[in-house]
C-alpha cells in the first residue's frame, strides 16, 4: 500500500490533545509517524498547507435504508455521501425492512459495505425483535455478528420494563442503548414542534415534554441499572438540563445533537415545506440556544447527522403524509463550522472531538484517533472554503435537505480510509 505523506497541515487530534502544524506519514494503512522531514520518501505527497488534518470523521447516526428502502438510499450511495461529507465511518440504524435484528442482517450490512468499498460501516441492531418493542432481540448473537450498539430508532422503546431489561442485559456486553426519546402518546399525529407557530399554522404539535419525559425516564433507568444510555438527537432545553444533572451524578449517559436541531427553528415550517418535517421536530430558538450551550459545555458529546433520506415522491406530499427526516451527511461538517466554530461556541479540537473520538468511545470502535499504529482514517478539511448547498450535487440518492441554498464554510477536501484515498474534491 502506498505511503502517503501529508505535509504542512494543521493536525488536530483531540484523542491525543494534538493541535499543531506538522508532517504526518501514513504507511501500510496505518498512522506511521509525526514530524517526518518534508522530503521523506512517500508514493503520494499531499500538500495540506492551510488545511486541517483530522482523524477520519465518524457519524454515529445515519439511515442507509438498505435493505428495504433502496429507492431512498443504498449502502453504496449512503457511504459515497459519507465520504463527500468527510466521514470515514458511519453507524447505521436498524429500522430497515426487514429490520436489523438477526446476525444475518448485520452480516448483510457488512457485506454490502465491503462491496461498496467506500467508508467503514458499523451496524446498530434492534433492541427488540422485529423492532416491535415487545421482547428483546438476540442481543448476544447480534454482538457476535459485530453490532456496536442497540436501538429501535425511528421509534422509542415505549415499554418501560423492556427498557429496563435491555439496560440490564446489555451490561454483559458493555454496549450502549441508543434511544429515540419520545412519549408516543404525547406526539400522536404531530408533525411539528408544539408552540406558537404550530398554533398559527393549525398543524398538530409535538410537545417538548414528549422528549423531556422520556429522557428523564431513561436516565432514571440507566442510573438504577448501571446501564449505558445514549440519547439520540437531543432537541429540547429540558433534555439538556436533565443530561447535565445526570452526568454530574455519574450516570453513564451520553448524547448527540444534529446540525438541523442546532441550526433551524420551527419558524421554517411556515413554508409548509416537508423538508422541514423532522422528528424530533425543529424547535424554538430557546431550545436551539440550549443545545449550543450543551454542546459548548460538554453535556452533548456527539454531533451526528441523523441522515434520513427519503425519495422525492415521498416528500412531495401533503405535510401529514410526508415522512419525517432530512439528509445530513453532506452538510454536517459545513454546519458545524458555520454554526458552532465560526461564532466561537466551540474551538476546532472540541468540535472535532464530537465527530471523532467521542462517538468512537461510545461505540467502542478503534477509530477517531491519529495515534501511531491506528487505522489510517484521515479527513483533510479546507476550513475556509465558501460553498452553497446544492442538492443536485449530492451523492446521496435523496435530496431532502432543509439547507438548500444555504451558504456554508469549510468542507472535506480529501478523505483517506485505511490508508487509501477514497475521496478527493475535484
Amino acid at each position, binding site marked *: 500500500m502506498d505511503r502517503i505523506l501529508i505535509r504542512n497541515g494543521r493536525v488536530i487530534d483531540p484523542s491525543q490533545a494534538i493541535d499543531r502544524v506538522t508532517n504526518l506519514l501514513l504507511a501500510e494503512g496505518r498512522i506511521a509517524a509525526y514530524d517526518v522531514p518534508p522530503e521523506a520518501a512517500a508514493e503520494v505527497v499531499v500538500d495540506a498547507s492551510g488545511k486541517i488534518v483530522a482523524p477520519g470523521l465518524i457519524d454515529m447516526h445515519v439511515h442507509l435504508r438498505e435493505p428495504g428502502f433502496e429507492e431512498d438510499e443504498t449502502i453504496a450511495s449512503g457511504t459515497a455521501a459519507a465520504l463527500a461529507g468527510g466521514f470515514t465511518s458511519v453507524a447505521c440504524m436498524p429500522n430497515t425492512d426487514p429490520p436489523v435484528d438477526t446476525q444475518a442482517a448485520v452480516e448483510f450490512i457488512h457485506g454490502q459495505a465491503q462491496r461498496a468499498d467506500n467508508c467503514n460501516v458499523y451496524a446498530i441492531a434492534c433492541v427488540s425483535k422485529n423492532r416491535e418493542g415487545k421482547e428483546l432481540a438476540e442481543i448476544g448473537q447480534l454482538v457476535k455478528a459485530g453490532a456496536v450498539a442497540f436501538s429501535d430508532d425511528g421509534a422509542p422503546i415505549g415499554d418501560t420494563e423492556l427498557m429496563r431489561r435491555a439496560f440490564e442485559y446489555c451490561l454483559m456486553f458493555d454496549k450502549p442503548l441508543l434511544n429515540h426519546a419520545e412519549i408516543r402518546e404525547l406526539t400522536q399525529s404531530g408533525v411539528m414542534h408544539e408552540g406558537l407557530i404550530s398554533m398559527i399554522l393549525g398543524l398538530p404539535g409535538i410537545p417538548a415534554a414528549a422528549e423531556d419525559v422520556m429522557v428523564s425516564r431513561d436516565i432514571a433507568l440507566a442510573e438504577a441499572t448501571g446501564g449505558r444510555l445514549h440519547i439520540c438527537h437531543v432537541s429540547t432545553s429540558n433534555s439538556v438540563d436533565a443530561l447535565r444533572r445526570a452526568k454530574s451524578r455519574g450516570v453513564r449517559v451520553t448524547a448527540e445533537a444534529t446540525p438541523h436541531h442546532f441550526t433551524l427553528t420551527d419558524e421554517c415550517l411556515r413554508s*409548509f415545506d416537508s423538508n422541514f418535517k423532522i422528528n424530533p421536530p425543529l424547535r424554538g430558538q430557546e431550545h436551539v440556544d440550549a443545545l449550543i450551550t450543551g454542546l459548548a459545555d460538554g453535556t452533548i458529546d456527539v454531533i451526528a447527522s441523523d441522515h434520513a433520506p427519503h425519495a422525492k415522491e415521498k416528500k412531495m406530499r*401533503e*405535510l401529514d403524509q410526508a415522512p419525517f427526516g432530512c439528509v445530513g451527511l453532506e452538510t454536517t461538517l459545513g454546519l458545524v463550522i458555520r454554526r458552532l466554530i465560526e461564532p466561537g461556541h466551540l474551538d476546532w479540537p472540541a468540535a472535532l472531538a464530537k465527530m471523532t473520538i467521542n462517538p468512537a468511545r461510545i461505540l467502542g470502535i478503534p477509530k477517531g484517533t491519529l495515534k501511531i499504529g491506528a487505522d489510517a482514517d484521515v479527513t483533510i478539511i479546507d476550513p475556509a472554503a465558501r460553498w452553497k448547498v446544492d442538492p443536485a450535487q449530492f451523492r446521496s440518492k435523496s435530496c431532502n435537505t432543509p439547507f438548500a441554498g444555504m451558504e456554508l464554510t469549510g468542507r472535506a477536501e480529501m478523505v483517506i480510509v485505511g490508508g487509501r484515498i477514497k475521496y478527493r474534491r475535484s
Partner: protein
Amino acid sequence: MACAEIDLGEVPGFWKRRHLLTLEELTAEEITLILDKASIFRQAITEGQRKFSLLAGKTCVNLFFENSTRTRNSFALAARRLGADMLDFSASTSSLSKGETLIDTAKNIEAMGVDAMIVRHSTPGTPKLLADNLNCSVINAGDGPHEHPTQGLLDILTMRQRFGRIEGLTVALVGDIAHSRTARSNIWGLKKLGAHVIVCGPSTLVSVRWRELGVETSYSLDDILPRVDVLNLLRIQFERQSRRPFPSVREYALLYAMDNRRLARTKPHILILAPGPINRGVEVTPDVADGPQSAILDQVTNGVAVRMAVLWLLLGNR
C-alpha cells in the same frame, strides 16, 4: 337571461395577488379592497342582478377533499354568476383512490385548462403546496385547522354591514379555537382591521399563546358577554379531535352554549354569527340561532358575494 352590467370601480395598483391562501398574508388594504368589491356584488344580488359576464371564458374547479355543502356550492354559484365554467371534482371518485398523488391529480386537472383551483383539504398547507406546483390561481377553501380565508372575509363583511366599521369592535370567537380554521382567519382579518378579538372556550381548546398575537383569551363566556359586540360561535370539530378535550358535550353546553339566558346579558346590538354547520343545542340553542340577533343566513348570502369578489379580483382583473 341577459347578463347584467355592474360598476366595480377601480382596482388599485397594490393588488397583485394570484392566490388567496390566507388572511395572515393579506394587508389591511387588500382585505378592505375585497370587502368593498364584495359589498358591490352583495348590493347587486339584493337588487336581483344575478348573472354577469365578467369571467366569461374562464374555468374554475372545486377540488374538495373534505365534506362541504355551503362553501362548495357557494364557490360554484359565485363562479357561475360571474360567467365562468365550473368543474366539480370529487375526491372519492378520483384517481386518488387509485394511488395517484395529490400533485399529479391537480396537475392533470390543471392541464384541462383551469384558471382557478378552489381547494379544501384536511391538511394545513396543502393549498400552498398546490400553489407552489401549479400555474393556475389557487384559492384556499379551508385547509384543516389552518385557515379559511373566504369564511373569515364573509364573517367580517357581515360585521361591517351591521356596524359600518370593524375598528374598535370587540369580537369574541367562542368554542373550538384549537381546531378552527375560521377562528384563525377571523383573528388575522379582524386584528388587521383594528378590532379587539377575544378567543373563549375550554382551556384545552384555547391556548394562552394567542396572547402573544395580541388576542385576549378567556375561559368564561359569562365573564365576557356584557362587553362584546359580536359573538362568532364556532362548531366543536369532533372529527378533528383524537380524544374529546372536555368531559362531556353536556358540560360543554352548560359552560358555552349561547342560550336566551346568556343573550339577556349581552349588549342590545349584539350580532351573533356561526360559520355553520352548527350543532344545535351545543354551541347555540335554536331560539338564539333563529332569533333577530342572529345573522347566520346573512352570512351565507355574503359568502357568495365575497367569493365573487375574490374570483373576480384574482381572475378578472388581468
